[in-house]
C-alpha cells in the first residue's frame, strides 16, 4: 500500500494520482515553514551574529567586551529558547507531515527537556529545515523557473531562437520539464519528509510493542476464561437449578395448600425461578452462546429482542474475526444497558455494524438525553481497554441534550 510520498513516486500511476499535488503542497509549505523558522530564530541569532561581525571587523578594546556580551546573550537565548522552539516546530511539522503520509503520535516526554532524546532530534530537524530546506527548495525553484519561463521567454524573445527547430526544441523541452518537475518535487519533498519522519516520528520502541502484545495475550486469556465460566455455569449450575426447581414443584404437589410448609415452599419455588432468570441474564452478559454459534447479527438481534428499548439493528449477516465480534458485542450490550438504565423506555436506539476495509465499525446511537460520562462508570472504560487490547479504539460522544453515540473501531482481518 502507498502511504508515503517516496513510495508513491515509484508507482506507475503516480502522475494521475493526488500525490504530485500533495508533494507540491508539502514543498510549498516547507518553504513557508523554513521562513517562519528563520524569523523565530532571528531573535537568539541576532546578538550572536552581531558579535561575529564585531570580531570579524578587527575592532579592539571596548568593542571586544560588547562582542563578548552579545555572544553570551546569544548563546544563553539559544540554549534557553532553542530546544523549546525546536519542539514547537516539531509539533507543527508532524502535523504538516500528514500531507505526505500517515503520522502516528509520538510518546510523551521522557525525562526533562534537555535529556529527552526527542528534544535533540527536534533540534536536529530544525537544522535540517533551516539549512537543508532552503538549499533543495532553491534547486527546485531554478528548475521550476526554467520550465515555466519557456513560453514567456519565447514570447518576449529573451532567448534567441533563430530556427523553427530551436523554437520547437525549446517548447518541447519546457513541456517535458513539467512532469519531470513533478517527479523532482516528489523526490525532494519525499526525502525531506522521510528524514523528518525519522527524526520526529520514531518507531514505537520494542518495549512498547511488547506491552501491546502482552495486553493482547491478556485479552485472549480473559476471553477464554469467560468462555469457561459460561460453560460451567450453563452445564452445571443452570441444570442443577432447573432440577431443583422441578423437585420443589413436585414437593409442593403433596403439601396441603393450607399448611405452613406450603407457604414456605411456594416462596422457595418463586426464589428458585427468579434465580433461574437472573442466572440466564448473567450468562448472557458473560459470553453469549448465540454469538459464537450464529454470529454478531443473530446475537445482537437476541439482545435487541430482550431489551426494553426499541432497538433497530443494521448488521450484515456475515461472520467477522471472533475477537472483533466479541468486543463489538460487549460494546453493544453495554451501550444498550446504559441507555436502558438512564433513558426512557420509549427511546429508540440504532445499532449499526459496517466493515470498512480491514476495520469493523460499530456504532450505537440513541435518542436519549446525552450526558454519558465514561469516568463515572467502569463499564465504558473497561470496554475501551478491551477495544485497545484488540488493537482498536472506543469513542464516545454524548453532549447534554443528546444524542449519545458510541463508536468502536476494531481491526478485522480474517
Amino acid at each position, binding site marked *: 500500500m502507498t502511504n508515503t510520498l517516496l513510495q508513491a513516486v515509484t508507482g506507475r500511476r503516480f502522475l494521475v494520482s493526488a500525490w504530485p499535488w500533495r508533494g507540491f503542497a508539502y514543498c510549498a509549505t516547507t518553504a513557508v515553514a523554513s521562513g517562519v523558522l528563520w524569523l523565530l530564530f532571528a531573535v537568539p541569532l541576532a546578538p550572536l551574529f552581531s558579535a561575529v561581525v564585531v570580531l570579524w571587523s578587527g575592532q579592539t578594546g571596548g568593542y571586544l567586551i560588547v562582542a563578548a556580551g552579545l555572544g553570551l546573550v546569544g548563546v544563553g537565548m539559544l540554549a534557553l529558547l532553542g530546544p523549546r522552539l525546536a519542539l514547537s516546530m516539531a509539533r507543527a511539522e508532524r502535523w504538516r507531515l500528514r500531507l505526505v503520509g500517515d503520522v502516528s503520535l509520538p510518546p510523551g516526554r521522557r525525562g526533562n527537556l534537555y535529556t529527552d532524546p526527542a528534544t535533540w532530534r527536534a533540534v536536529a530537524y530544525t537544522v535540517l529545515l533551516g539549512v537543508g530546506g532552503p538549499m533543495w527548495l532553491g534547486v527546485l525553484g531554478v528548475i521550476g523557473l526554467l520550465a515555466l519561463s519557456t513560453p514567456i521567454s519565447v514570447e518576449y524573445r529573451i532567448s534567441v531562437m533563430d530556427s523553427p527547430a530551436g523554437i520547437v526544441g525549446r517548447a518541447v523541452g519546457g513541456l517535458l520539464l513539467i512532469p519531470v518537475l513533478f517527479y523532482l518535487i516528489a523526490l525532494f519533498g519525499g526525502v525531506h519528509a522521510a528524514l523528518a519522519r525519522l527524526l520526529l516520528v520514531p518507531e514505537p520502541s520494542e518495549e512498547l510493542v511488547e506491552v501491546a502484545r502482552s495486553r493482547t495475550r491478556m485479552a485472549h486469556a480473559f476471553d477464554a476464561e469467560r468462555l469457561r465460566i459460561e460453560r460451567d455455569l450453563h452445564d452445571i449450575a443452570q441444570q*442443577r437449578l*432447573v432440577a431443583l426447581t*422441578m423437585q420443589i*414443584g413436585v414437593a409442593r*404437589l403433596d403439601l396441603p395448600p393450607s399448611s405452613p410448609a406450603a407457604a414456605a415452599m411456594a416462596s422457595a419455588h418463586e426464589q428458585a425461578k427468579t434465580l*433461574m432468570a437472573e442466572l440466564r441474564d448473567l450468562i448472557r452478559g458473560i459470553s453469549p452462546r448465540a454469538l459464537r454459534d450464529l454470529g454478531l447479527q443473530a446475537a445482537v*438481534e437476541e439482545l435487541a429482542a430482550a431489551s426494553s428499548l426499541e432497538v433497530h439493528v443494521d448488521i450484515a449477516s456475515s461472520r467477522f474475526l471472533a475477537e472483533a465480534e466479541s468486543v463489538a458485542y460487549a460494546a453493544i450490550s453495554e451501550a444498550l444497558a446504559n441507555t436502558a438504565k438512564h433513558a426512557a423506555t420509549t427511546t429508540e436506539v440504532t445499532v449499526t455494524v459496517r466493515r470498512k476495509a480491514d476495520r469493523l465499525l460499530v456504532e450505537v446511537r440513541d435518542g436519549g438525553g446525552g450526558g454519558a460520562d465514561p469516568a463515572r462508570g467502569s463499564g465504558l472504560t473497561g470496554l475501551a481497554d478491551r477495544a485497545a487490547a484488540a488493537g482498536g479504539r472506543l469513542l464516545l460522544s454524548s453532549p447534554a441534550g443528546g444524542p449519545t453515540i458510541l463508536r468502536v473501531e476494531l481491526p478485522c482481518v480474517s
Partner: protein
Amino acid sequence: MRVVIAEDSVLLREGLSAMLPRFGVEVVASVGDSPTLLAAVRRHRPQLVVTDVRMPPDYTDEGLRAAVALRTEDPGLAVVALSQYVQHGYAGELLASGSGRSVGYLLKDRIGDVAEFAGQLRRVAEGGTVVDPEVVRQLMQHRRDPLKQLSAREREVLAVVAQGHSNAAAARLLSLTEAGVAKHIGNLFTKLNLPVSDDTNRRVLAVLAYLRSRSD
C-alpha cells in the same frame, strides 16, 4: 401418553422421568444424546418427544436437528423442545415444521411449574402449539411490523392463545366472554392476513411469522 425424553443432564433427565408419571405420562425411554434419541423414537414410536435443544457432542442444536428430522419422517409426531434461553433462529425452524401443529418451544424454567408443564406437554401431544411466554413477551414488547396493527386487547388475546390455550381458557384468563375472544381472534387473523382455513393452529401462525422473519 407415551413419551421419549432426551436431555444430557442426568439430574434433569431422572427428575423428569420420575415426575411425569404422576401426571399420567408414561416415559418409555430417556436418553442423553441425539443419535440415541433417533434410535429410541424409531423403536418405541412415542406420541411425544421432549428434547433439550443442546446436547452432546457439539452442544449447539443437536436436539432440535433431531426433532426436525423426526418430524420430517413422521409429521404426526409431537415434539416439545426445551431450551435454556430464547434463540429465535432455532425456535422458528422447529415451530414452522409440520405447519406448526403438535409442537412446542419452552424455556427450561417452565419445568418448575410441574402441573402447568405437564399440561403443556399434553396440549402439544393433542395437536396444539405451545410457545413460551418469554418468546411471546419479547414479541409483544417490540410489536414488530405485522403486529403493530393489533389493538392492546388483541395482543393480549394472541399472547394467551399462543401458549396453547383454548378459546374457553382464554376467556377465563382474560375475563372475557368466549364470543368476545372469538371476535378478537377473528379480527387479528384478518389484520395479520392469515388465510381462512380449517387449520385450528392458524392462531399461532402469527407467532410463527414473527419468528421466521427474525431467523431469516
